[in-house]
């Protein structure tokens, strides 16, 4: 994230005399492991509780302690929550990166910094606020270990005063964040006060960033996608959870475990209505999930790209032997170890066809915390309805960052356990054949071990409709065709896309997952800057609905915007759409590891539309840059 000198020159300055009320981006640069997360979340929550739309993104290294980390808070009265690359207000707490961080700022930006860093000599076009953190901290606390943590709360106090945040409001947020730890609250409040009072007495407000109360967050909550997915899994009645730790998915299962312990222990017996196993690796994790799904449990695992790679063989078994399981893929940057703590949408193609032979998998693409929740619930229903592994394709940005979210609604639909054989259905279908399509939808009945219904032998080897081993060509082909039919049936059961047709638009935009947030803003930019009207199709699931083809047909050009190098979703669309329509597809790609931002999307589309993008905005450096021009 630290930008280069080149980037500096390309950053547009903040216009002199302008006032960025509820519309600025703040960055806190600290050292990983210094405990700044609490201070950053308190700041975020305070602004949220003042009714102002806000989002927080943590850009952190793959490291326990010592490497630089940046926390970005975007305050947006318009409700834009995508990443904004320009920084208007910097809190420079990390001596390693301070110089570079300051050089990357747009002119006119503010810098709160630790006085000894002497940053005011670096540039003349910024507003500098030196703060003697060591001295202030010493007045609050003497414990060496605590000092390091408390220091962060001092900058919260300073920032609060400078941007016009209510001190009481911040104290409330602090209590909420540290809930139930009165000693910690007391100490941190003292630190907050010291910072606030220092700013009051020694700093003269000269930067343009202000927060003023609004009423745009009422009824909303702050939550990360992984927690929302965990709540969804619990509400879906998950019974077997098997996982292996991996960033950025670990917190999904860890949060789930906390909730399960709270809400899923049988009151009378004190026993659990769930089982959680931290497996020896991802292969065992998916193996257990498949074993549990076969035996009738609602089973799940959670992982990221490297884990999905390892699960490939078992997922093929799940597909071919037709066993339900839910897999959360919180995507990070690959290939290989890649950038383990950065975000991407790079597992789309791998997951769609995971494993050898002819395979296709059901995938859901949540964009928001609400959808992490609702799609988690749907995923369990779909897995059992279609007796196959189902993937929920989240990403690091969604999973680990804090988002504003609508309150999560209690599910109204009962659990769909799919076609599980019972006496009644057995009588209706006559003879049970595990892989026999009796309803024409490709979905056969299954019996569960121990339930007294006729048994069958589940296997990854070739089988006929009676689940007998078979190498007969007609048996093999018939079965594989039926599984394909099942996939076709699934199309209309998958979550519907979110489509916005603009009758005046000749340009369509397709996006999915977290890319959505950049698109909301980018479409506004296209309209206000170039009067380009656009329609919008947000993909929520694979296989696609037929509506996707109609959408493409309606528009002359369709930009598919995604966060990977190889236009993975566009490639999937090409396989599905009539050849003629694929000629209309263009690609906009972003794969730096940072969450996609609206500016680069807009500029990319403008370039492809033949505009000359002169202002060279928000294209900070080569490493930051979105892809080159894609398209066909």
């Amino acid at each position: 994230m630290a930008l280069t000198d080149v980037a500096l020159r390309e950053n547009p300055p903040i216009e002199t005399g302008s006032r960025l009320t509820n519309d600025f981006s703040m960055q806190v640069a600290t050292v990983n492991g210094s405990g700044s997360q609490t201070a950053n979340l308190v700041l975020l929550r305070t602004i949220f509780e003042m009714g102002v739309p806000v989002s927080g993104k943590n850009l952190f290294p793959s490291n326990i302690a010592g490497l630089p980390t940046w926390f970005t808070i975007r305050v947006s009265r318009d409700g834009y929550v995508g990443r904004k690359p320009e920084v208007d207000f910097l809190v420079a707490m990390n001596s390693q990166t301070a110089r570079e961080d300051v050089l990357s700022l747009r002119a006119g930006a503010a810098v709160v910094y630790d006085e000894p860093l002497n940053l005011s000599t670096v540039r003349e076009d910024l507003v500098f606020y030196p703060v003697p953190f060591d001295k202030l901290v010493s007045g609050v606390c003497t414990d060496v270990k605590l000092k390091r943590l408390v220091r962060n709360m001092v900058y919260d106090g300073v920032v609060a005063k400078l941007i016009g945040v209510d001190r009481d409001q911040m104290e409330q947020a602090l209590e909420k964040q540290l809930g139930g730890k009165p000693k910690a609250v007391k100490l941190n409040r003292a630190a907050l006060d010291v910072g606030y009072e220092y700013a009051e007495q020694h700093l003269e407000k000269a930067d343009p960033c202000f927060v003023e109360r609004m009423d745009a967050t009422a009824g909303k909550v702050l939550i990360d996608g992984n927690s929302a997915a965990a709540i969804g899994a619990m509400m879906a009645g998950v019974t077997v959870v098997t996982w292996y730790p991996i960033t950025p998915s670990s917190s999904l299962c860890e949060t789930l475990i906390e909730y399960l312990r709270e809400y899923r222990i049988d009151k009378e017996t004190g026993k659990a209505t769930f089982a959680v196993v931290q497996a020896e690796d991802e292969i065992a994790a998916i193996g257990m999930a498949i074993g549990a799904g076969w035996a009738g449990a609602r089973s799940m695992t959670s992982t990221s790209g490297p884990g999905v790679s390892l699960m490939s063989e078992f997922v093929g078994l799940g597909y071919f032997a037709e066993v339900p399981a839910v897999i959360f893929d919180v995507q990070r940057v690959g290939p290989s170890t890649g950038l383990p703590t950065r975000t991407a949408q790079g597992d789309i193609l791998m997951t769609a066809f995971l494993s050898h032979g002819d395979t296709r998998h059901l995938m859901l693409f949540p964009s928001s915390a609400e959808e992490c929740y609702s799609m988690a619930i749907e995923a369990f229903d779909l897995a059992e309805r279609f007796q196959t592994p189902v993937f929920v394709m989240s990403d690091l940005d969604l999973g680990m960052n804090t988002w504003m979210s609508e309150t999560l609604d209690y599910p109204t639909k009962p659990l769909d356990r799919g076609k599980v054989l019972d006496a009644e259905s057995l009588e209706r279908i006559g003879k049970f054949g595990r892989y026999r399509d009796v309803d024409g939808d490709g979905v056969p009945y299954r019996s569960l071990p121990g339930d007294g219904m006729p048994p069958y032998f589940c296997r990854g080897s070739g089988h006929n409709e009676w689940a007998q081993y078979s190498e007969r060509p007609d048996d093999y082909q018939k079965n594989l065709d039926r599984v394909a039919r099942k996939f076709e049936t699934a199309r209309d059961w998958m979550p519907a896309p979110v489509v916005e047709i603009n009758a005046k638009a000749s340009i369509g935009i397709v996006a999915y997952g977290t890319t959505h947030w950049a698109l909301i803003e980018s479409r506004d930019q296209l309209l206000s800057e170039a009067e380009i009207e656009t329609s919008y199709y947000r993909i929520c699931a694979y296989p696609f609905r037929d509506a996707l083809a109609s959408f493409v047909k309606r528009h002359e050009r369709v930009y598919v915007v995604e966060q990977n190098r190889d236009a993975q979703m566009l490639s999937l669309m090409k396989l599905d759409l009539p050849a003629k329509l694929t000629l209309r597809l263009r690609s906009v790609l972003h794969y730096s590891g940072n969450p996609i931002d609206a500016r680069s999307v807009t500029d990319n589309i403008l370039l492809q539309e033949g505009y000359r993008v002169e202002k060279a905005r928000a294209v900070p450096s080569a490493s930051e840059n979105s892809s080159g021009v894609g398209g066909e």
Partner: protein
Amino acid sequence: MATGSVSSSRKNKSNLIGLESKAYRGGKTTLCAGCGHNAISERIIGACFEMGIDPERVIKLSGIGCSSKSPAYFLGSSHGFNAVHGRMPSVGTGALLANRKLIAIGVSGDGDTGAIGIGQFVHLMRRNLPIIYIIEDNGCYGLTKGQFSPTADLGSTKKTGVVNDLPAIDTCALAIELGASFVARSFSGDKKQLQAVLKAALAHKGTAMLDVLSPCVTFNDHKGSTKSYAYAKDHDDPISEIDFVPYFEDIEVDYEPGDTREVEFHDGSKVYLRKLGEDYDPRNKLQALSVLSSTKSRGEFATGLLYVEPAKTDFIDLLNIVDEPLATLPESRVRPPESALQAIMEGLR
């Protein structure tokens, strides 16, 4: 009965739950005639019949290989899952988490366990999952035409004369070290011992690991092999004579004190281990490891119940799961009420 030996096999045609022996049969084997694995399938059928096991509660699990095909050849009215190579333990774990009432019989091979599956084997033993895990051990990969497996002994040869120059993995020693609560070794040709060990395994609550020498008549039954019928017969060194008495049979066993050891299992069944040479205590880990090592150094292999810890907590109990199968809990017990979601939301506001 006078001394030592008891016969627990009932003379009746039907067993405890009223089933005849044929109810435990499976499909026709497709393995080679004379394959040790077929004999093991027979012993599994016999043991399940004699123990009055309900086939509807049994799940048969396997990995990939000749051995792993065999679950299709016994207990045809039980559910089965032929999983992927070396990863049957995870599938079995998941299934038992989903339904703790199931009785799991896993069949693996020496390649499936000792090579590709060694990781999952290790963790299965560690967890003490209630499963019978049988390694049908012939020291070679049969389905791919006789390559050495990790249990092939150092210096043993292939049919072509090629010598194995790597030491064998002793799955029994490994299982004991890793915490398995029931470890036995037997020989497919020793009907009496194998069936008694299998019945004891069915009575045990926890991982019962059985390494059964099971010669491959096609690729590993020649002179120079240490896994051939001839070699096995000559080098089988039983540590004690084993008799099994199920909980439901009222049999008095008289034995000379100091001559026989008794082990009682979770369900009340007992095994009696009669001294054959050195006094052997199957609860003594160090003795088990020492006997395994000393017999091996003599080129022999110790058979019988090597180690047992009947009271060890199994994995399902460790997880404190409700008594009913998780798989079929009704919605009301797995979906928390609306008030729970409201409380969570309140905490996030």
